[in-house]
Structures are given as C-alpha cells and as structure tokens.
C-alpha cells in the first residue's frame, strides 16, 4: 500500500458535507472499497454517532455489526474511517489512537472548527503510531495516473 490516500472528489465532498451537517457533534463514517488490495475508497457510508457528542464518537454496536456483515458479503474492507473534530485540529487525539483498530485503514480527520474553511487530513494509525499521509483528490479513478497527453486506448 502506498503512503498516500487517493480518493475521488465526490467522496471528499460527501464526507465534508456530513461533518458540516452534524456540527457541533462529531460526525463519523466509513468509505468501503473492494477487498482486492486496491486501497480504493468507493462506497460512502455515513454512520450515526451513537455518542452524539461534540467531543466523542462511537458507532452504535448494532450498526457496527450490520456494517461489517455487509462489507463481508460485498467483499469490501473499510478503506477510510473518518470522523470530525468540531473545535480542535484535524489531528488524531490520544483517544483516536487508543481506539484505532483497523491497521490497513486510512484514518481521515476533518475539522469543522472554522465555519468557512475546513481542514482535511489523513493518517495511518498502526500499533499506536500515527503517520500522516498526503491526500490525492482525483476526478475519477480510471485516469488517476494519466496526464493530459495520455490518450485512452482505442
């Protein structure tokens, strides 16, 4: 897996919109992708924050079971696990790190502390260690690695 999160723009927009909508409570969710090593977020799944808190989030336990059963049935994995911070920076807190249990997921944080400008950052959290990574926002995945001079195959 590369040290970057490549994600389609419409998914970023949906994620940020969700965070804005739930502000001042923390918003949370998953973007699932195929379990084929492609590391490609595809299916946006906003989740209920059962804690409904401005400083804590938790997936409801029944929702969590349903989500993982659905992903297993679809051969999906949680490529992105996102949540918002509503008064602090978009950096994983000690609580975020202590709960992070998906070693292959990109933990995406969005901060809605400023009403105009959001902050969006992505991290890997493995064995308690945070590694920030750049986010590459693309219009589509098919041409993500082509430039303006690349012609599609005929």
């Amino acid at each position, binding site marked *: 897996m590369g040290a970057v999160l490549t994600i389609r723009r419409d998914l970023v927009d949906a994620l940020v919109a969700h965070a804005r909508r739930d502000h001042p409570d*923390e918003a*949370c969710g*998953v973007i699932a992708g195929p379990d084929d090593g492609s590391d490609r977020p595809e299916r946006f799944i906003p*989740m209920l924050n059962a*804690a409904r*808190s*401005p*400083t*804590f*989030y*938790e*997936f409801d*336990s*029944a929702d*969590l*079971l349903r989500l*993982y059963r659905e992903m297993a049935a679809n051969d999906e994995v949680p490529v992105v*696990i996102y*949540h918002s*911070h*509503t*008064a*602090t920076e978009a950096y*994983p*807190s*000690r*609580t*975020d790190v*202590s*709960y*992070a*249990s*998906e*070693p*292959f997921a990109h933990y995406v944080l969005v901060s809605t502390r400023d009403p105009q400008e959001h902050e969006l950052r992505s991290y890997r959290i493995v064995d308690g260690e945070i590694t920030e990574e750049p986010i590459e926002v693309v219009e589509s995945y098919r041409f993500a690695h082509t430039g303006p001079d690349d012609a599609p195959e005929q």
Partner: protein
Amino acid sequence: MAITVSIPTILRTHTGGEKSVPAAGSTLAEVIDDLEANHGGLKQRLVKDGALHRFVNVYVNDEDVRFAGGLDAKVADGDNVTILPAVAGGSR
C-alpha cells in the same frame, strides 16, 4: 456443530491469519478460554479485570453480549460469535 468465531483483522496475528475459527463452550467466558488454549494471547486482547474490554464488541449471533450477560452470555452449538473492535474516538 462447533461454535464459529469471527476474528477481526487486528487479532488475526493470534490465529495464524485465520478470520474464522471454531471454539467450544457454553458461555462466552468458556469460549474465550477455549480460544486462548488454541490461540494464545487472544484472551488478554478481549478481557481485562474479569470483564470484556471497553474497546471490543462481542456478539452471539445478532446480539451484543453487553445485553445478554457479558462474559456470562450463553452460547450454544451452531452459534456464531463475532468479535469487532469498537469504532470510536474523540477530540481528546
């Protein structure tokens, strides 16, 4: 028919990479002890001070054991036990 236990990614280091393993027991506590006997190190990831870790959700079939007696939850042959780490966090 044994009990089938689903193992989340983060605990598969204890099961040699297996995502599903059989177990025996008539309560969750017994199932966890059985898992520990076959997959050492698993119990301490699940149980702390005689109760299930705050960070871990365990389900017998569709029910969160939190509502069925926790470690005393009854488990029967043919049941599915699912272990899922909680997805949670906060600003602190």
